[in-house]
């Protein structure tokens, strides 16, 4: 009996290191954050008061929240649609043999491995120096409050489309080739083959990709932070930047933490709904 207990304990020691790091970095800060969200703490002072749901009330009545909501949704919609549609088209187009096909794949995936900071900086100069020459425009997309979110979204699409491409490409390899053959014999056009075979059988890849980009879009922080720092003015501020600004530069940690929690719950609900929507449509074959 003591041997068994000893063995159970030895087993448990395997999980202890991971658990220690996880508790220190995720669990403990999360619980601490739950507590902070119900206070009026500025983030520095040794004392603070509990204010109940006042932060939540302030958050839902803050009209300055409307712009970050609009910006975040715009970014999410543009990037999710462009990355998935073009990523899928590229994967289908590159799913044939021709000279240089692997080289093209590595080129399109290449932006994915460089840091986002580098990507955003390079594009800042492309918008300000190169676009005026190529398209005879001035100021660039990032300098204009109405186009700045589109400009930032393009950077993200350029960088991440390769990821969608390789995921859809891997998905395409799981579809049995004879399905296309029998469809061709039945006289199905390539458009019909795409909509009737490729898309339904790629649903597991959609279930992965679409919630992934919706999730990263809704919590978007780094692209606008590096490309524009939220500017011009606050015209490219996202929800995650709103959280950051209140927690750090504005010294309203309690309020910022509540905003972070609301953002988390919102993202959780959206991704769960979308994931289950796609999962229900997956087919067995």
């Amino acid at each position: 009996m003591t041997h068994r207990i000893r063995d159970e304990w030895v087993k448990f020691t395997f999980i202890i290191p991971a658990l220690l790091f996880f508790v220190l970095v995720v669990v403990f800060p999360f619980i601490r954050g739950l507590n902070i969200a119900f206070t009026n703490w500025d983030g520095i002072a040794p004392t603070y008061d509990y204010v109940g749901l006042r932060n939540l009330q302030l958050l839902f009545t803050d009209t300055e929240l409307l712009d970050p909501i609009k910006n975040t949704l715009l970014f999410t919609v543009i990037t999710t649609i462009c990355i998935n549609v073009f990523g899928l088209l590229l994967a289908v187009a590159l799913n044939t043999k021709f000279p240089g096909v692997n080289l093209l794949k590595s080129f399109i995936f290449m932006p994915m491995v460089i840091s986002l900071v580098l990507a955003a900086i390079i594009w800042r100069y492309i918008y300000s120096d190169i676009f005026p020459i190529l398209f005879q425009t001035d100021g660039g997309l990032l300098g204009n409050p109405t186009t700045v979110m589109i400009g930032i979204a393009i950077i993200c699409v350029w960088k991440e489309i390769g990821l969608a491409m390789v995921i859809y490409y891997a998905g395409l390899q799981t579809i049995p080739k004879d399905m296309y053959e029998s469809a061709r014999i039945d006289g199905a056009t390539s458009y019909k083959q795409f909509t009737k075979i490729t898309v339904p059988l790629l649903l597991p890849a959609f279930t992965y990709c679409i919630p992934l980009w919706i999730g990263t879009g809704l919590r978007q922080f780094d692209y606008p932070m590096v490309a524009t720092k939220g500017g011009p003015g606050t015209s490219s501020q996202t929800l995650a930047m709103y959280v950051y600004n209140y927690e750090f530069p504005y010294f309203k940690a309690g309020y910022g933490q509540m905003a972070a929690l609301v953002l988390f719950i919102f993202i959780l609900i959206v991704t769960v709904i979308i994931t289950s929507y796609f999962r229900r449509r997956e087919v067995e074959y």
Partner: protein
Amino acid sequence: MNTTHPAAAAVQVQEPRPRRKWSQILRVALLYLIAILFLFPFYIAVVYSIKTPVETAQSPLAFPTHIAWSNYAEAIEASNFFLALRNSVLTTVGTVALTIAVCSMAAYVIARNNTRFYNFFYYLFMSSIMLPFQVLMFPLYKTWSELSLLNTIPGLIIALTGVQIGYFAFLYVGFIKTVPKELEESAVLDGASRYRTFYSIIFPLLKPINSTILVLSALGAWNDFVVSMILVQKKEASTLPLVQFQFFGEYTSQVNMAFAAIILSMIPIMIFYLFAQKWIIGGVTAGAVKG
């Protein structure tokens, strides 16, 4: 009525050939064009990094007539490149080693013990995959400041490992469940301890998933911006992305030197991409597609 005459069928097969060939050529040409478009920003970065300011102003797009290597010498000095490189290498190596060590062990007991107790930890780890970093950002910063871990490489390594544990443990568990149990059972019968069984039998079998985790966590740590930005403010511990971010704020007037700094910090990751491309692409698709 439906059966076609053999000759007619032959014509049908023959006829669309030339059209298909042309459309295939057109499609390939279009794909090459798209790939060139994707490479264009890299071209701009390279060209800017080797031009003089005068030439940049005259013709931003053209390849330079004279290569200004001095941009690189200036960039290395002004951005303190080697310090940042050292910090990035240490952070990445530390995070990768720690991630593989702790995640593989934890995933092993989770995968092999389908009990309520271990499933609880599995779902606990998994729940962090959906958690936006913004929720942890401020309390983590406060905790790190109290533990004197702010602005230190070990502090950054611990944080980067912690935020990635959920996803990587999830990938490990999925893989370990496909590894047959027979080998380790006979080892246990032979009297080997659990640790010996794990390190001499299981761990070597995990090679494919270990390389996946290696490339994913290396890329994640090397390119991380958000976590490092919160936990590191001082130059001594700044990694390459942080230095780039600061540097561009300070040197917006010296574009060419700043681009030389960009190219410099891109070189290590490009070499890594050149050699590990297969594993990188295999790694990023690992969680997405089964089989």
